[in-house]
């Protein structure tokens, strides 16, 4: 036990517990290229960090974890910079729109419900589809004739076609732009990085090779997380830099291990694992909505 007092969160917590927490989330982030904010924030709240500080500080640590992870993938050549920049462009526009939408929904009331319901629905569908696809791919592996890299649909008839060399794709730039926008809206409204939606969408919607996806996703998460951190610091003063730094030390070690481990996994296994996690989150969300809560009441201090 080595307790440290966190200046913004205003609680004392055990350093080793925070390091372990950071490392566990870092492994996930390294393997799949998802930020892990969806896991980190509730865990921090569980150990006593105020919710607003937990969410904002997770975003802060996410910057460092994503830089570390993205660099690891970059060195292995698993980062499509061109694709990441297009996604980012859409993402920034999407977050701006999302912040506006958030304010609008909040004025109408029950924003939390809208968010939880749509997220649970989205993740359930996504997780199920991914599970079927990856298990199917695993079964097919034994000798059956290989399919084409991806099917051609009307999506490939869109204008502004660009060659994304690292992703071995020749598709309309509108596709990643719109995807980035949608995820940007989602992350601004939900307060999560959006890696969970981004990663499967890159694999299935854009048809990117699985190996290139985590690095590319992490690269654009860096900027989304940075924007969220600065916004939260200015608007709510809820960013605990010390907490973020401690989580980060554990996180970067985990992320390096994770990206190395992920590189050894086969694509369909990686996708099946990710599908499992997406489904688990969806189940958790549904449970939160339908299971009677232990405590019907929740306190929150009103900031004057």
């Amino acid at each position: 036990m080595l307790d440290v007092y966190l200046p913004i969160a205003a609680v004392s917590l055990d350093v080793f517990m925070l390091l372990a927490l950071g490392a566990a989330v870092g492994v996930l982030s390294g393997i799949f290229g998802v930020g892990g904010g969806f896991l980190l924030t509730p865990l921090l709240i569980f150990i006593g960090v105020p919710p607003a500080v937990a969410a904002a500080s997770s975003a802060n640590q996410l910057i460092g974890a994503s830089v570390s992870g993205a660099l690891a993938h970059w060195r292995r050549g698993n980062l499509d910079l061109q694709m990441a920049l297009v996604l980012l462009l859409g993402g920034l526009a999407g977050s701006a729109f999302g912040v506006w939408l958030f304010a609008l929904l909040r004025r109408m009331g029950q924003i939390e419900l809208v968010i939880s319901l749509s997220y649970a629905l989205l993740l359930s569908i996504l997780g199920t589809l991914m599970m079927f696809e990856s298990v199917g791919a695993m079964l097919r592996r034994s000798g059956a004739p290989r399919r084409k890299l991806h099917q051609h649909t009307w999506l490939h008839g869109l204008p502004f076609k660009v060659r994304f060399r690292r992703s071995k794709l020749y598709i309309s730039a509108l596709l990643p732009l719109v995807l980035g926008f949608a995820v940007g809206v989602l992350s601004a409204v939900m307060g999560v990085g959006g890696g969970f939606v981004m990663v499967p969408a890159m694999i299935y919607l854009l048809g990117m090779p699985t190996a290139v996806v985590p690095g590319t996703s992490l690269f654009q998460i860096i900027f989304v997380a940075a924007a969220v951190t600065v916004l939260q610091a200015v608007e709510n003063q809820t960013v605990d830099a010390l907490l973020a730094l401690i989580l980060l030390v554990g996180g970067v070690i985990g992320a390096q291990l994770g990206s190395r481990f992920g590189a050894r996994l086969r694509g369909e296994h990686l996708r099946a694992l990710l599908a499992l996690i997406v489904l688990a989150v969806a189940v958790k969300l549904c449970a939160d909505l339908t299971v009677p809560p232990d405590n019907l009441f929740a306190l929150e201090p009103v900031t004057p």
Partner: protein
Amino acid sequence: MRAVLVLGLLAAFAAAGARAQGLTADLSSHLVAITTGFTGTSVVLFGATDGPGDVIAVVRGPERDVSIRRKSRIAGIWLNARALTFTGVPSFYALLATRPLDEVAPPAMQTLHQFGIAALRLGGAEDAASPAERDLFHAALLDDEVRQGLYLKAAGRINFLGERLFRATIDFPKNVPTGTYIVEVYLVRQKAVVSAQTTPLVVSQTGIDAAVDEFSRRNALAYGLLAAAGAAIAGWLSSLPFRNA
């Protein structure tokens, strides 16, 4: 707010001074400093009376507004349905006494001086549909504060050393809120308060923590940018050892 508090303290001191005969009390320290390694602390309350009687002490943290939400089930889904905001909610509450509270203080006195969590009076929540609803939310608020360890349900013990000297230890948990606390000490004889004294106690961050906290409030944008840049640099540094792997 602070001016009101200072005035209140002065008034309390003046009142105590006017009838301070019978009771003198002080704290071993008037400042609880929260440093990086803070894991909770205790402060000794000590004093003397001019004869037999019981001593009751109440420790109240700085007041703030608290809103409390209740979830309800609508169409099979649990959602935040109702919220009430209470004002003047102490952020910390502890009671200490020389004997069990009910033996020392009759119910009317407990209510008047807000002895014990059950006697706490809170403001606000005017939009409650009924007194019953307000009571329900009030009780839930108290439960939550008790669960967080900020309201101490069991009365602490004040010990007499001989006939007149008394001494007690006030324990503060590691999640103690910062601000100006008020320690009220009462001397009770024959089920009546005969003397009272009020002492302030400041709980505050010191050293680096205080500096970081202040900087984050004064220069929010610079703090945010620094926090973001710091995390990015830490991420980059940490990836260096793995470069040639």
